[in-house]
């Protein structure tokens, strides 16, 4: 299966398969707030196989026991992969590796299985969290390196009229037939000082969001200002998202390799097949 580059650091390319979703900013954790973390989901369920987004040698695996609050949480693992010729490794968490330290893996090959640890909200799908780190500083939160999204200019805008294509236990998914695209990548588009960008956020559960494809300026969705982006990070102004006439409790907008932009609506109040229009109001 062909792999699409979604981010780079130096000569390290982060690659994703078709049908994957990815996000720089829809998480509350600190590294994301500096564009130093990237989440990637293949769409798999818990314990499904997950592929490696880079080629390289596995240089470290660390297991961290699950907290005692639930016997149904998986132990956490940190896996570090060092691409050939690189001084920096890719740190991957939320995956139980099926390989060992010293093994080599090609991007796209099975790295392990998706797990569910204490870092997941109930509406989060299984997926991996990635950071780029110096090889002698693999495990902590601070000190990671910044990802650079790989994005061609975005063509078209995502029209905010769509249909509910999935209703899961804790969320519904809306697909938008008319979506802005950048090569194989799509998402909800927004305007950043006249420039088209993708909106990457979980609002309002996460107190900030991000734009991918633009760095800074006033951010608007469908003509309504939602905040100010500085270096990709949106400081929100007050606004609400409405789905038809009902105010949404929370929405999550990430980048997609699934041909159509999607919006996750939390909780699962929408029914499959329902036609919806999204509006933004102050």
């Amino acid at each position, binding site marked *: 299966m062909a792999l699409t580059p979604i981010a780079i650091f130096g000569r390290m390319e982060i690659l994703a398969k078709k049908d994957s979703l990815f996000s720089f900013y829809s998480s509350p954790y600190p590294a994301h707030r500096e564009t130093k973390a990237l989440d990637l989901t293949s769409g798999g369920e818990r314990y499904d196989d997950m592929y490696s987004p880079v080629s390289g040698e596995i240089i470290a695996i*660390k297991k961290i*026991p699950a907290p005692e609050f639930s016997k149904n949480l998986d132990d956490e693992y940190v896996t570090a992969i060092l691409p050939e010729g690189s001084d920096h490794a890719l740190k991957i968490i939320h995956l139980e590796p099926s390989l060992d330290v010293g093994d080599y893996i090609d991007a796209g090959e099975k790295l392990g299985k998706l797990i569910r640890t204490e870092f997941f909200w109930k509406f989060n799908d299984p997926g991996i969290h990635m950071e780029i780190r110096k090889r002698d500083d693999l495990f902590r939160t601070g000190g990671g390196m910044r990802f650079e999204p790989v994005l061609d200019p975005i063509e078209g805008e995502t029209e905010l009229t769509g249909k509910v294509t999935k209703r899961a236990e804790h969320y519904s998914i809306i697909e938008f037939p008319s979506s802005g695209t950048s090569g194989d990548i799509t998402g909800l588009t927004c305007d950043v000082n006249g420039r088209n960008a993708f909106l990457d956020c979980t609002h309002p559960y996460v107190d900030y969001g991000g734009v991918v494809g633009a760095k800074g300026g006033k951010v608007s969705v469908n003509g309504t200002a939602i905040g100010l982006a500085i270096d990709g990070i949106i400081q929100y102004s007050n606004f609400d998202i409405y789905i038809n006439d009902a105010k949404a409790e929370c929405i999550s907008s990430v980048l997609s390799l699934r041909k159509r932009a999607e919006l996750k609506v939390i909780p699962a109040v929408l029914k499959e097949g329902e036609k919806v229009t999204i509006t933004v109001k102050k």
Partner: protein
Amino acid sequence: MKVDEFEFPDDLLYDENHLWIKVDGTTARIGLTDLGQALYKGIMHIDLPEPGEEFPRGDTIAPFETIKSVSKIIAPLTCKISKVNEKLRENSEIINESPYGEGWILELELQKPEEKDSLMPISKAAEVYAEVIKKEKEKYAYLYE
């Protein structure tokens, strides 16, 4: 004493920031409780202060990091640092593995010893911690649905 699955030695004092404090006159040793280490699994780094540094009660004394999150040790009492657990510089996971033993974090000279009356014996701390444990368990209750 046990609160749910978590151990809390009877001879220590506790605070709402998940610290245990062993007071001995005008000195004290502090660390994270068993519950505290469970809330921060996999402590990968801690920024320790230097002996001689002074902190008012409530100030950040030692930021620390897990594999994905950050938090901090907050001074439970107005103090001067007398000793740090140097082992934590190389292996901060000892805090998770042995929170009341080898994972102690700091020794303090108390500059206002009377502040220790604000700390909780386990008989009182148990109520506070039971609520924390209940909320954490509720977060993951969906995994049983």
